[in-house]
């Protein structure tokens, strides 16, 4: 099963997903799509946690638990972020980052 795959291959996949997320974060203007990019980044990290836990320290569950906590924090983050988006949209009819200039300087 999973032992057939070298660890480094899994890490390559997660690294690529991570930097795809970073690229998306830097090129998107819409806040929701930036949030999507952040979710990609978080999932790449989760994959790393799980893979290293599974391959190098299979007798423990630290990576597993950290993944669990990251998921929890991601949920909280998404909830607050979306609350902000909706409030923002209600006020300025847009959720583009460039439009939010009210509190600049």
């Amino acid at each position, binding site marked *: 099963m999973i032992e057939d795959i070298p660890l480094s291959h899994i890490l390559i996949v997660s690294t690529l997903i991570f930097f795809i997320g*970073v690229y998306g974060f*830097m090129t998107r203007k819409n806040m929701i799509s*930036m949030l999507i990019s952040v979710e990609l980044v978080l999932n790449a990290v989760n994959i790393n946690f799980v893979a290293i836990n599974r391959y190098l320290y299979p007798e423990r569950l630290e990576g597993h638990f950290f993944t669990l906590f990251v998921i929890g924090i991601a949920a909280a983050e998404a909830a607050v972020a979306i609350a902000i988006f909706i409030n923002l949209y209600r006020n300025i009819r847009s959720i583009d*980052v*460039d439009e*939010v*200039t009210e509190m*600049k*300087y």
Partner: protein
Amino acid sequence: MENYQYTIWILILPFAAFLFTGILSGKLKPSLTATISIGAIGIATALSYLAAIQYFFLNASESYTAVEAASFTWYRLSDTLVIDMGILIDPISVMMLVVISTVSFMVHIYSTGYMKGDDGYARYFTFLSLFSFAMLGLVLATNLIQIYVFWELVGLSSYLLIGHYYQKPSAVAAAKKAFIVTRFADLGFLIGILMLSYYTGTFSFSDITNPDGPLITQTIGGTFLGLSTLTWAMILVFMGGAGKSAMFPFHIWLPDAMEGPTPISALIHAATMVVAGVYLVARMFTVYSLAAPEALEVIAFIGAFTSLFAALIAITQTDIKKILAYSTISQIGYMMMALGVSGYSGEAGLGFTASMFHLFTHAFFKALLFLGAGSIIHAVHSNEMKDMGGLRKHLPATHITFLIATLAISGIPPFSGFFSKDEILAAAYASNKLYFAVEYLVAGLTAFYMFRLYFNVFWGKKRTYENIHESPASMTIPLWILAFGAAFAGFLPFSHLVTTDGIPFDTHFHLTIAIASVAIALTGIFIAAALYRKESTRSQKIAATLGVFYTVTKEKFYVDEIYLFITKKIIFNLISKSIAWFDRHIVDGFMNLTGNTTVAASFRIRKFQSGNIHQYALVFLTGVLIATLVYLYYYPK
């Protein structure tokens, strides 16, 4: 061992009243606030009398020993140096309890009439409760730190109450003056406490004043300017007492403190707080007497000088409250002098007993005089003697009680002042003839200026007043009660109750001195009667012939002006101005420089804060990558 546990309620009740009415101020009706305060002090008064009766009269043993009714450790500085909070029951504290609670209770009741309709009615009673708490705590203190804490608390409440009419600039100035002057003197007190505790390793009175304790039996510390360190410490402690008790040269705040409501003058600035200095010296008397006799000489000298000095000023004043204020200073000088000439134990300790006795009787007749003055002011709406005259018909109750108090302070038998003053004079005679001569003269002056006041107010020229009437019962009843005390307090066998070492002794009646003192008092009274009983110009003529002397005393020997000269001209110009220049130009300049530099730099780098998230992310990521590269190539495995 007798149980004095209940005495803690004497402290708790006024404090609780203060907290309750203070926190709920504005929510409670003013009359309810007054009722709560009066109730608290009333119960405290009853408990004080209970304590006094139990201590003095239900005591089986021959002598009176100090009892610590309650004590808990408040703060532990080291193994031996512990700050306690407790209650000390001994002859002088019990006597003070009776004095303070009685006068305070009377003033509370009197104030309901005197302050009626005042805007700050509730505030007044709240602070009155605070003062009662602080003053009672002061006399019950078991150690130096506790007495210092309450010492400052009475100073604070005195400040608050002098400034009661805070819309009046003169009241505000007087409150500040009282606070600053006493605060300055308290600095000496604090240094004295620290010196004492440094050498003894304790704050507790029972350790410090133990006649067999190390402080008294051993010589400690070095010497400075020919006096031992202990003597200097005790002189500094006395400096605190002199500030509170308005001894020369700290007396300047007390006449100004008359800006406060008159009942406050009666309570704080005549009967209780100003004698705290006397109480402090009496509390530490064992140390003064046995280990620092030089400090005691200083006390005697300052006391005698102040009593003469203040009596001279009192003769020429025209504001009735100012006269009473200088009279208070003079009488406290008497008490201080008596402590100063006293020896330790037995008959030699007559001065101590006499001082406490005079404190006791003085509290009654001086509070009565002030409350009577309040009643007069209440009727006439003026402090100036020239606005009064012939009032004996209009204010009969005030007149009788005022006369009793005046006779008492003049030392006419059988009123209380006679007995205590006689003992003081006897003590002075036994110790130092010069002090006796001064005090003898002051006794005559006292009789003169008090009857000058009395005749000017109640006799003299007839004038018509609009709408004048006797004060309400809430004001006259306390007058009568205090008059009773002023008349008969002298019959208490004080030398059996309050002595230096707690062992009673018998006083002999000094007939010669008694006759002499009555004679000079009567002389003073007759001169006053001749000058002021009928309206005449004789007094002006005498004033004119005295010329410069009259002006100098009327201007209070220019002490205030000297103070102003020293503070304004010398300290402000020479020291403060240079410091202010340094502060404005060097210190502020440096601060402004840093501030301006920051602002200028911020304007330059402001553009980095573009608000563009993409840019932030880019910069952040670039930084992370550079850091990673640095890490990889500078710290290879």
